[in-house]
């Protein structure tokens, strides 16, 4: 103002014309949020996580695939055409029967060709060749092998079954003529749940030890820290092997299964405990936690109301990343004959048949369980990555 001041001019001419913008004015306009932003700032933590997660397309699709796989867990009996331990002595090591739609240029719907079997006396094995005159249409929503649904009532309803008197081995059969596909579907029941229960155990242990270390600090903290370090420096698989070899052989399959999940969870918690501890330590210093303490909240309330919600999302994400390693652990143990055994069926138990390489080269379809294992593990990895990114507030 001072440099444009011209003393020769009268004061009035310096004054600008008074102007008022007729549009309505709100002094807080700079800080006003758009509707979008308002929604974001008022959303709960979980809603924000969900929005972020949705943007991670790969993770969402992995989640969908996993849900499909997990549908096999409650409905294995209905989905599988056979029961996993049904033996067909006419079809030992039968190859997979591909599904066809057209027979001699004519549409018949999905069907398989029957198989002719002859014995090969030089190699002492059955040789199966498709019999192109024998059209066996697949039946849908039909009654087939009887089973006990959820161990509650008898039923024989299947989503699809072989033609009357025919066979339907879409992935071939094993040494005793058991259907591989049905084995895979039933196997999902144990293979997929082993990780969930194992992770639950590992979360409980991790929360307990991590919480103890993070909350008490001092001697307890350093003792638990040392223990975690030692546990993490031990190779997991040999210990799993030793522990599962210690399960009594006289136990029934259900007990063996739970024993295995406990073993898998027992060695997995250190990583989680360490995460819980460091999160607790850093959250304890946050202002809102201090404020709660200053307002006279008891430790229990501080932990459950202020600290825990701060890292549940984080824990879920890191737990979902350790599920695949447990699934693989169970598979490896059963594959080595140290885990589950028939009549329990898991993917590792099925792979057990493929242990002998000379058998695998002749009957490659015995390796079929490899495919769902890889898909599930990949899907869990992507899902876990997506969850972790979504749970990270700084991204």
């Amino acid at each position, binding site marked *: 103002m001072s440099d444009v001041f011209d003393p020769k001019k009268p004061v009035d001419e310096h004054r600008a014309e008074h102007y008022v913008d007729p549009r309505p004015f709100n002094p807080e306009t700079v800080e006003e949020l758009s509707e979008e932003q308002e929604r974001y700032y008022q959303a709960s933590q979980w809603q924000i996580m969900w929005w972020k997660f949705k943007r991670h397309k790969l993770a969402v699709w992995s989640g969908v695939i996993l849900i499909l796989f997990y549908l096999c867990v409650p409905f294995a009996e209905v989905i599988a055409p056979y029961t996993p331990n049904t033996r067909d002595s006419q079809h030992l090591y039968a190859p997979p029967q591909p599904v066809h739609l057209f027979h001699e240029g004519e549409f018949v719907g999905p069907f398989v060709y029957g198989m002719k079997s002859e014995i090969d006396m030089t190699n002492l094995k059955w040789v199966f060749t498709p019999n192109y005159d024998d059209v066996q249409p697949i039946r849908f929503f039909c009654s087939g092998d009887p089973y006990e649904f959820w161990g509650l009532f008898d039923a024989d309803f299947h989503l699809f079954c072989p033609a009357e008197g025919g066979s339907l081995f879409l992935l071939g059969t094993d040494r005793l003529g058991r259907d591989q596909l049905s084995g895979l579907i039933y196997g999902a029941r144990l293979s997929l749940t082993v990780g969930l229960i194992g992770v639950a155990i590992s979360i409980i242990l991790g929360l307990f030890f991590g919480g103890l270390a993070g909350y008490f600090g001092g001697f307890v903290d350093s003792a638990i820290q*040392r*223990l975690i*370090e*030692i546990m*993490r*420096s*031990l*190779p*997991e*698989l*040999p*210990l799993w*092997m*030793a*522990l599962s*070899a*210690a399960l*009594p052989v006289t136990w029934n399959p259900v007990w063996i299964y739970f024993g295995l999940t406990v073993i898998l969870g027992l060695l997995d918690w250190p990583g989680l405990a360490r995460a819980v501890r460091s999160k607790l330590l850093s959250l304890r210093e946050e202002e809102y936690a201090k404020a709660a303490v200053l307002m006279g909240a008891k430790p229990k309330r501080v932990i459950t109301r202020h600290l825990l919600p701060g890292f549940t999302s984080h824990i879920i994400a890191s737990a979902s990343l350790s599920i*695949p390693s447990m699934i*693989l652990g169970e*598979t*490896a143990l059963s*594959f*080595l*004959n*140290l885990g589950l055994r028939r009549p329990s069926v898991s993917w590792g138990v099925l*792979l057990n048949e*493929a*242990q002998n*390489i000379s058998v*695998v*080269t002749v009957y*490659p379809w015995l*390796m079929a369980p*490899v495919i769902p*294992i*890889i898909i599930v*593990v*990949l899907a869990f*990895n*992507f899902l876990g990555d997506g969850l972790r990114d979504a749970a990270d507030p700084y991204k």
Partner: protein
Amino acid sequence: MIYYMVRRILTMIPTLLVISFLIFLIIELPAGDYISNQIAALRTSGESASIAKLEFLRKEFALDRPFFERYLIWIGAWPGPNGFDGLLQGNWGWSFEFDKPVNEVVGPTLPLTIVLNFATILFVYIVSFPIGMYSATRQYSWGDYGFTFLGYLGLAVPNFLLGLILLYLFNRWFGLSVGGLMAPEYIDQPFSFDKLMSILAHLIVPTIVIGTSGTAAMIRRLRANLLDELHKQYVTTGRAKGLTERKLLTKYPLRMALNPFISDIGNLIPSLVSGSVIVSVVLNLPTVGPVLLSALQSQDQFLAGFILLFVAVLTLFGMLVSDILLAVLDPRIRLGGRAAS
């Protein structure tokens, strides 16, 4: 430096004690022991002639003592039936199944186990370093996407299944047996150059199989670390001052990213050793893996215990080496240790 190393080695002693105790606890978990199970089996079949001998053996191996005494005798800190005679005195125990001392059973397999694990670690380093660097410097290029995809696959395919698949494919396509330590014609042959070559050739597949998931993990980490560094301002400054890209990369960001790269290998070693155990079973390699499996199945406790301990010591040793490497690389660590104590 020497001070740091000594301190680091001394801290291993309590760790080893805890580990040996855990392992002893685990191998003692199954009900009974090898000999008492045999006695029970003989009793049920009505035989009694050899029971007395077995009872004597139980005494001889101190299996009738209480748990803690057995543990101390095993590690050699308590007088057993033959005085102090345990791991500390160099007696690795007795294998009931083979009816031989443990060192005769596992002795021949130990060098190969060490060689295999060492080769795998080298493989992980050599392969993941250039790929991680490439992926970070050419982020979002086709090569980066390709390696990322391969990396995910490598992480997802469990190593023993990868071994199984490779075994099948090699057999199918080349009629080659990749299992075993050497080609069948060299077994029982005197040692020669060809035999050595055959052994080396057979080591390639297991090394790749065991190392894949570790390599994938390392690539991801190196890529992430290097990317973090590359986005920092000093890199922009350097570039603005006209440093060549190559010099810019190797002079600062790479050095910063190298630290976690070295220390992460320590975290990776347990899973590598785990992998070598099961892959050896699948590929039929004469390492400690198959011996451990059979020992566990027949409850051959001292044999299993020794192998578990050996595997654990191998991992600890690997971590020690990675820590020392880290200290050589980073003065903050070796000097920090002194300042703190």
